[in-house]
C-alpha cells in the first residue's frame, strides 16, 4: 500500500487507535455479559418451574416447560387437532395484519383531519371519548353475529382495537405542529394542502409511529380474542380448544406462538421507525431504540 508508507502513522494517532480498540472491546464484553445474564434468567425461571412441577405442584394444572415444548413439537410435526399449525398461524397473522392496516390508516386519516379541523374536533370529541370508553373486547361477540365465523369478524375486532390509540396519537401530533414551521412554509409559498402534506403529516409521524408499536399488539389481541369467541381456525381457536380439553400445555404453547408473532412485528416496526426518523439527533433515536 503506497499511501500508507508515504504517510506513516504518527505516534499520537497510534495511541488514539489503541484507545479506540480498547473502548470497542469493552463495549463487546459488556454486550456479552448482558446476553449471558439474560440467558441465565431464562434458565433459572424455566428450570425452577420444571423442578417445581416435577416434584411439588401438579403439572396437570400448571403444566411444565418440557410438556409445553413437547406440545409445540407435536403441533409443528404432526399438526394440531384443528389442522396444520401453519394454517392456524397464517390465519391469525392475516387477521392481525388486515385489522392493523385498516385500523391505522383510518386512525391516521381521521386523527389528522380532526387535529386540523378545530370545529369538527370540538363538536365530536365527547362522542369519541364515549366510544373509547366502551369495553371494545365485547364487540368481538357482536362482530361474530354480524360477520360470521370467518376472518371478517376478527379483522373488525382488531380494527376497533387498533383505531383508537392510533387516532389519538395522530390527533395530538397534528395539533402540536410547530406554529413557526407552518408560518414559514406559508411565507415561502406553500398552499394549505402543501402545508398539510409537507409539514403536518411529517410532524405527526413520530407520534403516529410511537402508537403503531402498541397498535400491532392490540391487533393480535383483537384477532385472538375474536377467534376465541368463535372461529374455524387460528391461534385463539387452538387456545380455546386446549382450554376445553384441560390441556394447560396447549394454552401455554398458544401463548408462546402469539408472543413470537408480536416480537416479530415489533422488530419490523422498529426497523421502519428507524428508517423514517433517521433525521432525528442520535441521542433521541438511541433512547427510542433502548426502550
Amino acid at each position, binding site marked *: 500500500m503506497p499511501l500508507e508508507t508515504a504517510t506513516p502513522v504518527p505516534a499520537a494517532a497510534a495511541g488514539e487507535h489503541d484507545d479506540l480498540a480498547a473502548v470497542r472491546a469493552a463495549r463487546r464484553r459488556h454486550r456479552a455479559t448482558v446476553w449471558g445474564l439474560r440467558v441465565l434468567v431464562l434458565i433459572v425461571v424455566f428450570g425452577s418451574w420444571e423442578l417445581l412441577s416435577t416434584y411439588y405442584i401438579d403439572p396437570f394444572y400448571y403444566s411444565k416447560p418440557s410438556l409445553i415444548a413437547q406440545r409445540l413439537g407435536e403441533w409443528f410435526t404432526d399438526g394440531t387437532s384443528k389442522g396444520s399449525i401453519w394454517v392456524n398461524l397464517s390465519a391469525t397473522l392475516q387477521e392481525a395484519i388486515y385489522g392493523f392496516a385498516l385500523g391505522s390508516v383510518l386512525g391516521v386519516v381521521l386523527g389528522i383531519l380532526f387535529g386540523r379541523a378545530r370545529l369538527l374536533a370540538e363538536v365530536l370529541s365527547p362522542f369519541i371519548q364515549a366510544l373509547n370508553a366502551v369495553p371494545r373486547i365485547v364487540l368481538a361477540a357482536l362482530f361474530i353475529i354480524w360477520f360470521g365465523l370467518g376472518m371478517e369478524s376478527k379483522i373488525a375486532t382488531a380494527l376497533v382495537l387498533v383505531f383508537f390509540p392510533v387516532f389519538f396519537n395522530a390527533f395530538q401530533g397534528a395539533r402540536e405542529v410547530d406554529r*413557526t*414551521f407552518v408560518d414559514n412554509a*406559508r*411565507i415561502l409559498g406553500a398552499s394549505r394542502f402543501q402545508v398539510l402534506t*409537507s*409539514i403536518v403529516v*411529517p410532524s405527526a409521524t413520530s407520534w403516529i409511529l410511537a402508537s403503531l408499536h402498541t397498535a400491532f399488539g392490540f391487533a393480535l389481541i383483537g384477532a385472538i380474542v375474536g377467534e376465541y369467541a368463535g372461529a374455524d381456525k387460528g391461534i385463539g381457536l387452538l387456545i380455546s380448544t386446549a382450554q376445553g380439553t384441560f390441556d394447560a400445555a396447549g394454552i401455554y404453547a398458544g401463548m408462546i406462538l402469539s408472543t413470537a408473532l408480536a416480537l416479530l412485528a415489533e422488530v419490523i416496526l422498529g426497523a421502519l421507525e428507524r428508517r423514517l426518523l433517521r*433525521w*432525528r*439527533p442520535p441521542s433521541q433515536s438511541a433512547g427510542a431504540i433502548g426502550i
Partner: protein
Amino acid sequence: MTPLVQLRQATKRFPNGRGGLHTAIRDVDLDIGAGEFVAVVGPTGCGKSTTLSLISGLQPPSAGTVTVGGDQVQGIPGGVGYMFQSDAMLPWRSVLANVAAGPVWRGLGKDEARRRARDWIARVGLDGFENYYMHQLSGGMRKRVALAQTLVNEPSILLMDEPFSALDVQTRALMQQELLRLWAGSGAAVVFVTHDLEEAIVLADRVVVMTASPARVKATFDVRLTRPREVEDLRTTTGFIEIYREIWSSLSAEVDIARKGQTRAA
C-alpha cells in the same frame, strides 16, 4: 409615489388570555422604500415583531391600513421573505430539501428548484453541506440555511425578526457581515427587528425607535455611514459612536419604562 411598504395608523390587539385585550402596537405609521435597509429597535417585548407579521400578511391589522406595493395586504403578498427568530427549517429535511422547498411550493420544477437551492447554499457558504440535517449544523450554519431558504425566492421585501439574537457575539458579527454581503446588490428592502442598537446601526440605513408597550413609532434616525461596511471595525469609529449616543438617548427612556413595567408585573 407610494413607498413599497406603508403602514398607516396600524393597530393590532390580541386577546391577552385573561379575558381582556392586549394592544401590541398602536397607530404605527411607517414607510419603507424599495431597496432600503430599515432597522426597528425598541425595548424587549414591545411589539416590534407584530409590525412584521402585519406586513407579511400572517396577521391582519385590527385597525388602520397596511399596503405592500400599493395594494392593501390580504393574505401573504408576493415578494415577501420572512426570517423568524427561532429556527423554522424542517428537521426531517436535508439542507438542500429545505432550501428548495420555497421554489417547489411556488410551482417550479424539482430540478430547477434544486439547481437554485444549490446555488444559494454555495452563496451562503454552505457548499458541501447539502445533505446534512438541521441537528448536525451549528447555530450559525442554521442561520445560513435560513438565509438561503428565504433568499432563494428572491424577495423584494425581507422581514427579519431578531434573526441573530440566539447566536454568540462572534458568530453574530460574522452573520451580520454575511447579511450585508448578500443584501448588497439584491435590491431588496429589509425590515430588521432587533433590541440590539449596535446591530441596528451597523446594518441599517435608517433606525426606527419604538416606544414601550403598546408600541408606537417614537423617532426615526438616518444612519449616514458609508457602505460597504466592516461590522466589527465600524463599532469603534467616531461616526458610529455619535449616532449611537443620539439614538440611545431616545431609546433608553423607553427601555426604562419597559423595565419598570416588568418589575411591577413581577
